């Protein structure tokens, strides 16, 4: 009895401190993101640090004949900067997409891949990997090194649109149908992927495995510019989605009663998520974990209000992927690890620690 009371008290204290937790979470995570961003620019296999930045910038702007400056400029501006930006955009997109899906399905365990993006993108990627020299050759010739990312994006989008067409009736999106059709379509895409994998040789299989573990190793400016509009779209959409998602937490009917245009909000969420996850998967392969864990961590610390969950997820998601990518680049340099491995290795203990210390936030 006494312990029950004490538990209750400590829980209400924890909850009462939410307003402060929110402010602290936001300021700490923004500062952290900035620090990690700078760190990401300053470390790497070559050992070039930010001290070389002025030289490199000079070379970049005015040219020169100094070999070191040229190399520094290449590493800083063509490798690390796009890679850092890409990691941040991918992390933010995935984390916010996860939060959106969890809010939409009212399920804290919903995954950003729920609307079929990942499976569709994977099928398209696997197709270009396995048939790049056969029937997919014209496509690969047309898009060159961006053939795979572009195909993955299109594959993800087509899958989601198919799903939406199946689950939409008279302009209404049936969430149950969407969920089940998503599972069915995912299984179908998985079967096709498996069939193609079966027909692949070992090198193609190795490529597939690596792709499915995610990596930012191919980061380049075109990729940054490719994901930028989608990440920007998502950041721009956040303020307009907060109210709707908070309403959805109580249920679709309740959201409508509280003045939310339910159907429009659902469409926006599904399509934004599809575009963002599609773009993220296209440029970095399958990166799991971020979409589920980051929104969860935010909720554990600052509560489930989307006015904090969405922006904090964006910042923390970007930060986590950046940290993981720094490890991926440095740990086994000059080689590198797939980022998925690092993300799970860093994220899982942190997550477990939070869950054990704070409980699951009354989720049971």
């Amino acid at each position, binding site marked *: 009895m006494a312990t029950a009371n004490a538990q209750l008290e400590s829980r209400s204290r924890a909850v009462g401190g939410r307003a402060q937790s929110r402010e602290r979470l936001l300021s700490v995570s923004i500062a952290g993101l900035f620090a990690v961003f700078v760190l990401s620019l300053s470390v*790497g*296999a*070559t*050992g070039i640090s930010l001290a070389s930045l002025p030289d490199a910038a000079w*070379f*970049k*702007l*005015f*040219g*020169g*004949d100094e*070999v070191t400056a*040229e*190399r520094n*400029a*290449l*590493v800083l*501006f*063509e*490798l*690390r900067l796009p890679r850092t930006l890409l990691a941040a955009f991918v992390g933010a997109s995935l984390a916010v997409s996860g939060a959106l899906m969890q809010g939409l399905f009212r399920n804290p365990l919903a995954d950003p891949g729920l609307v079929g993006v990942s499976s569709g993108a994977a099928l398209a990627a696997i197709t270009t990997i396995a048939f790049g020299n056969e029937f997919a050759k014209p496509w690969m010739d047309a898009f*060159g*090194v961006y053939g795979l990312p572009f195909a993955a994006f299109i594959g993800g989008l087509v899958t989601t649109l198919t799903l939406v067409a199946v689950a939409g009736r008279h302009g209404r999106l049936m969430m149950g149908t969407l969920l089940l059709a998503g599972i069915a379509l995912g299984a179908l895409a998985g079967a096709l992927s498996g069939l193609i994998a*079966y*027909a*692949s*040789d*070992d*090198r193609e299989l*190795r*490529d597939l495995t*690596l792709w499915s573990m995610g*990596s930012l*190793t*191919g*980061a*380049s*400016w075109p*990729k940054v510019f490719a994901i930028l509009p989608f990440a920007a779209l998502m950041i721009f959409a956040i303020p307009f989605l907060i109210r709707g998602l908070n309403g959805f937490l109580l249920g679709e009917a309740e959201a409508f009663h509280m003045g939310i245009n339910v159907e429009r909000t659902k469409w926006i969420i599904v399509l934004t998520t599809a575009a963002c996850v599609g773009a993220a998967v296209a440029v970095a392969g399958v990166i799991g974990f971020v979409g589920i864990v980051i929104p969860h961590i935010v909720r554990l610390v600052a509560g489930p209000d989307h006015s904090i969950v969405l922006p904090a997820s964006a910042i923390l998601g970007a930060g986590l992927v950046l940290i993981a990518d720094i490890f991926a*680049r440095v740990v*086994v*340099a*000059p*080689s*590198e690890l*797939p980022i998925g491995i690092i993300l799970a290795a860093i994220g899982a203990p942190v997550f477990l620690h939070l869950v054990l210390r704070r409980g699951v936030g009354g989720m049971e």
Partner: protein
Amino acid sequence: MLRRPTSKLRKRAIVVSLALSVMGLPALADGPTTRTIPRNSAGVDTSRIVAIGGDVTEIIYKLGAGKNIVAVDATSQFPPDALKTKQNVGYMRALSSEGVLSTRPSLIIASDGAGPPEVTRALKSAAIPYVTVDGKDTADGLRLKVNQIAAALGLTPLGKKLVSEIDTKLSKLDERRKTISKTKSVLFILAARDGRAIVGGNETSADAIIELAGARNAVSNLTGFKPLTDEALIGASPDAIIVMKRGDGSKSHEDALALPGVKLTPAGKTKQIFVMDGVYLIGFGPRMPDAANDLMTKLYSRDATDANGQGVN
């Protein structure tokens, strides 16, 4: 050297830097040279080589330039010295641009399978000579690879010598092959785990080496490396089975024998199951003729002894 007008457009800056990178190549060649640095005929510094691809590394070592290698990829298993003493830039299909650059290479020699494409593109755009080696898993492909690498290293005469050595061995192999009266069918098992065999079908390096060794592939109806069912294994009825040695060395022989179908095949009945090193046998490096010869010996020595009363060397 070049004084470019200031441009605030970053895109133009990128273009400029790319242009400079390209121009950097001849600039480097024309620049003041230090005599001790080894160079190829184009004047490219070959003192710090990054070798990507097992066959590439093996050929560079064979040409005597192994000491100039600073880094290799994870598939460069032979000579064992390579992965032990050189830096490792990871699996050849998952390279990191900065990782490769961090080894400060003066020359990158990479198999055409190196990737991912964005990384090889970034590396090619850096002011470091990048040589792509392409050659199929055939005798001609091997000659091509040796010639390309020798040229990149400025060692064309040595390359010619190596090619002629290879040719000599190959013609000996041809001679031997003509003495084979009855061609055996061979099943190549890449891996056998949990009772499932991954075998080499048509258009694989395994198929090529089996042919060179004077045998025929028992599963030429398959294409690529594929899993094989027990029944299909029995149906293929190979006269001999070759199993690849696993990373940990030991158990591959037993794994293959444990496959339910194996005992029922002619190979299982006559115990014609051989374990061989994968890199050696299907690496298609300079040791390829030896590997083919070894395989041929394994496959036909007992026959020769049985039939003619004398072994084939």
